């Protein structure tokens, strides 16, 4: 009986929610330690906040481990997703692909400036997460957007836009 409960509790570690809480907890401990090196007037407020939040995290951790029967119902402003899509591996895959799309676009922006950022983000999104038929539409749209944005912001309004590392004038 006891073994069952223990292994149940250990399984909790795998849950993303708990992991997140632990990460936050240890992060707060880390900054608390850092704050001890600051002069007294600067550190009182941060320390107060950190200690308060640490306390709350500790409470939550204990509740999760010692009262796992209390279900954590998520009642937050989340978009009403389709149930089949929001759980399971299918979401996991799309989650990583979504980030891949963002990262590729960022790399493009960093290296080549916003001019390339725009088409790359359209193309990467459609290729990774969208439907193949949309690719042409996406590419055309991206070119039009890039040109419009360039004219409007760079030439007309004079607002500087991201210059790529490799294309620096």
């Amino acid at each position: 009986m006891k073994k069952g409960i223990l292994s149940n509790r250990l399984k909790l570690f795998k849950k993303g929610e708990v992991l997140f809480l632990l990460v936050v907890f240890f992060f707060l401990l880390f900054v608390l330690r850092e704050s001890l090196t600051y002069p007294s007037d600067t550190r009182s407020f941060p320390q107060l906040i950190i200690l308060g939040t640490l306390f709350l995290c500790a409470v939550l951790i204990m509740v999760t481990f010692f009262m796992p029967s209390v279900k954590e119902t998520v009642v937050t402003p989340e978009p009403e997703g389709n149930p089949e899509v929001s759980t399971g591996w299918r979401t996991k895959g799309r989650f990583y692909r979504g980030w891949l799309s963002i990262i590729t676009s960022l790399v493009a922006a960093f290296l080549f400036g916003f001019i390339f950022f725009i088409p790359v983000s359209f193309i990467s999104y459609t290729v990774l997460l969208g439907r193949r038929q949309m690719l042409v539409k996406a590419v055309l749209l991206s070119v039009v957007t890039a040109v419009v944005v360039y004219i409007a912001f760079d030439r007309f309004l004079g607002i500087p836009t991201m210059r790529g590392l490799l294309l620096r004038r």
Partner: protein
Amino acid sequence: MKKGRIGTKDVRKANLMALATALVVTVALALPASGADKFPSNPIKLVITHAAGTSNDVEARTAQPFLQKYLGVPIVIENMVGTGGRKSREFVIKEKPDGYTLLSTGMPSCQIGEILFKGRYQTLSFTHIYSLFSESTALLVKSDSPFKNMADFVEKAKGKTLSCAVPGVGSTAHLNGIVLTRYLKLNTKWVPFDGGTEALTAMAGGHVDYVICDTGSATAMLQGKVARPLMIFEDKRDPRYADVPIQKDLGYNVDTIPSLRGVVGPPNVPADVVNILEAAFIKSAQDKDFLALAEKAKVKITARDAKQFFAVSKSIYDEIKAEEGNLSAMVKPEK
């Protein structure tokens, strides 16, 4: 949504063509403009240490149309905000000294950033080009305050610790204030705010006893008679407020730390480029329209050419360096 059916071959062709067009267009737009010979032949980038709308920025934008007129090329303003100006200075000091990247920075903010806050640049190694604008620091009280003038103020303040609002820790106002109160042997509680306007607001609400800040921020309150200046920290009387005494008038043997804003370039900008830029500034400073505009905006013009600008910059630098120990203690920089 349309349900057109295109054959896969056509889709691929369309994709390729679209991609090709995209690449061509974007590369064409991104290609840098071809270099040129006589300076200036390309737009000049003027980096500003603070955000759009701050006094440095507004002054630069006021001068911008005139500089463009006399230089013949566009002046592109770029606000590089960060760490009280250090970010933009650290950036410009590493740029090519071809005259196409310039920095508009305030002083002594520049020197303070370097000496007290360990900024990664050397103020004196910048190529000093021109300084158009300067600012005076003033000591102000509420118009209905019991302090009638400086003598009265000093009299009433003896033995007490008054609270003084300043625009920021280590700001010109703060430093001038420290130097003055040390001389007058007055104890002060310094209450730092974020900028002159906040400091003035606190005084206007009666939450602090007096305020030391730049006259620029106080313009509205001075004109509206909400605030009253008791003295101005300057070497000569400020023409905009000619009836306000300066240290000399009051018999105080205290130096002013002057406050000005100037344009610099990275180290070692060639002399002929500097001359061309300097000439444009000189013409702007004498331009009737510019002067009229500055008059209306109550912006103080103290024209200093490259040599004079550098001289003032160096004197400010030396002064702050000399007081470094005391000021650091007061200001507590990053460990």
